[in-house]
């Protein structure tokens, strides 16, 4: 069954869209990532114009994150206090990132910048996570090994404005979470994603938060950042396709429910390895696009109606 999308101006199979939303929803619930780094390239692939894919992807992430965060609230795995600190940084960063994006757009080559930042960030994060979680599993198999000390890094302890984050069991300065939120906000605006795949590792490795809390807290922050992005796209570029978002959401919210359940059954280390592998696969695909000779070196983009 085909559905015509009024903003994207293409007709696509409705079940394909629901399935796509569902797969991304499962990943979103499992890992606490919004799934923007997956849904946007997937929408390109089925023929949705890139601008519409980015904007509508953001709208879809609002729904799947909201559904996911409710499940985490019930399990008390959301650190609200940490979430708000990250959010303040995130909104400032997103507003700044949109400005950077527009400047680069005027200079041209914005596509290249987006692709390169995907490859660089996904590559670094995926590799680091994979190494660290493989080490963690190796250590847990040798019972007498000394327990790895989780917690804040020494330099973080020296910073002022300390706050107590009870849910995370941390007593650290508010500055590192603010900076993490800010950096993620900038990248999120430039790359057109929620930023969970950057924030989740940052929360684990920089802030030293426990993995179980990280997922819910990042989802909490992502809702607001992606909602903000959706409004920005809707008012400046008119590229949010509501029917497309709705169909993706139907698949996504169902997927997110299953994903959250699956995530709770897996061990934290296994979860991290899976996320690391996923990130590396997406990174590899994007890197190949940049490195291999394209079958069609030319591309066409419509500027507007001619007089």
């Amino acid at each position, binding site marked *: *069954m*085909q*559905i*015509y999308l*009024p*903003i994207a*101006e*293409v*007709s696509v199979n409705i079940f394909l869209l629901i399935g796509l939303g569902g797969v991304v929803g499962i990943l979103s619930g499992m890992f606490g990532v919004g799934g923007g780094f997956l849904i946007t390239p997937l929408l390109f692939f089925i*023929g949705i114009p890139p601008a519409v894919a980015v904007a509508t992807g953001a*709208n*879809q992430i*609002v*729904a*799947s*994150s*909201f*559904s996911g965060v*409710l*499940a985490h609230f*019930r399990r008390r795995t959301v650190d609200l206090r940490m979430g708000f600190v990250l959010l303040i940084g995130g909104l400032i960063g997103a507003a700044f990132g949109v400005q950077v994006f527009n400047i680069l757009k005027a200079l*041209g*080559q914005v*596509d*290249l910048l987006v692709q390169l930042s995907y490859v660089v960030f996904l590559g670094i994060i995926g590799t680091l996570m994979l190494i660290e979680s493989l080490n963690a599993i190796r250590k847990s198999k040798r019972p007498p090994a000394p327990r790895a000390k989780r917690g804040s890094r020494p330099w973080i302890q020296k910073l002022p404005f300390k706050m107590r984050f009870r849910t995370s069991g941390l007593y650290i300065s508010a500055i590192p979470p603010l900076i993490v939120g800010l950096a993620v906000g900038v990248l999120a605006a430039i790359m057109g994603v929620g930023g969970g795949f950057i924030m989740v590792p940052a929360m684990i490795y920089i802030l030293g938060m426990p993995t179980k809390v990280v997922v819910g807290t990042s989802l909490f922050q992502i809702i607001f950042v992606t*909602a903000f992005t*959706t*409004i920005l*796209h*809707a*008012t400046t570029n*008119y590229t*949010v396709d*509501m*029917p497309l*978002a*709705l169909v993706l*959401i*139907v698949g996504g*919210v*169902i997927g*997110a*429910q299953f994903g959250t359940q699956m995530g709770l059954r897996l061990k934290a280390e296994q979860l991290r390895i899976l996320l690391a592998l996923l990130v590396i696969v997406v990174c590899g695909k994007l890197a190949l*696009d*940049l*490195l*291999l*000779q*394209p079958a*069609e*070196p*030319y*591309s*066409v*983009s*419509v*500027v*507007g*109606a*001619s007089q």
Partner: protein
Amino acid sequence: MIRFVIALLLLTSAAARAEEVVAALSQNRVSITANFDGSEILVFGAIKYERPPEQIEPLDVIITLSGPEQRVVVRRKQKVAGIWINTRAVEVDQAPSFYAISTTRALNDILAATEDLRHKISIPRAIRSVGAPSNVANSAAFTKALIRIREANKLYKLQEYETVLFDGTLFRTNFSLPSNLVEGIYTTRIFLTRNKRVVGTYKTFINVRKVGFERWIYNLARRQPLIYGIMSIMIAIAAGWTASAFFRYLRS
């Protein structure tokens, strides 16, 4: 204008051979609804002769269907420091969003190059590119690439031998419009040719528009973007909430 041309043709017909085209389309408007999945347009018509057709040389028919004109940028990727990036760009001032030609015989056999240039009939002639930047040596390659890409996407089509002409008087052809249509006025042109020269023309229009829900959403997004954006978020949150409540209910 057409009436004037026809009148002129009729006036001169006493001495010269003159033919007139009468044509119609299966539909003059295409409505884009939620389940729109492309459309078929049937173009049919007749040639009116001043004298019995047996006594004069046979005619050929060329029918074109073109979508609204667009300005497009064609970019080319080149390898720079190991990665493929866009290096050169050429702007094409006028390219139809959709273009199909249906003919009775091979286009080259029934249309002279000068006539093609005058009436802008073939695909390369339908595209207008003037302002190629001076730093791009081979701008023709960019226009060729535009045609190649749009032909691959079934937006540009040359349908030779697909116009059927019965008894030299009645003709018909089919165009299939793809599902990724751009809204606007589509133009149908019919050309009669003899000895590679255009001897008669006819022009009519098809209005392609979004209707109903599709129209409403599109207008809201354009005219009330803030309300539209907030609505999109509200729908997203409501859907997330409903799904969460529903699944909790299922489990309990």
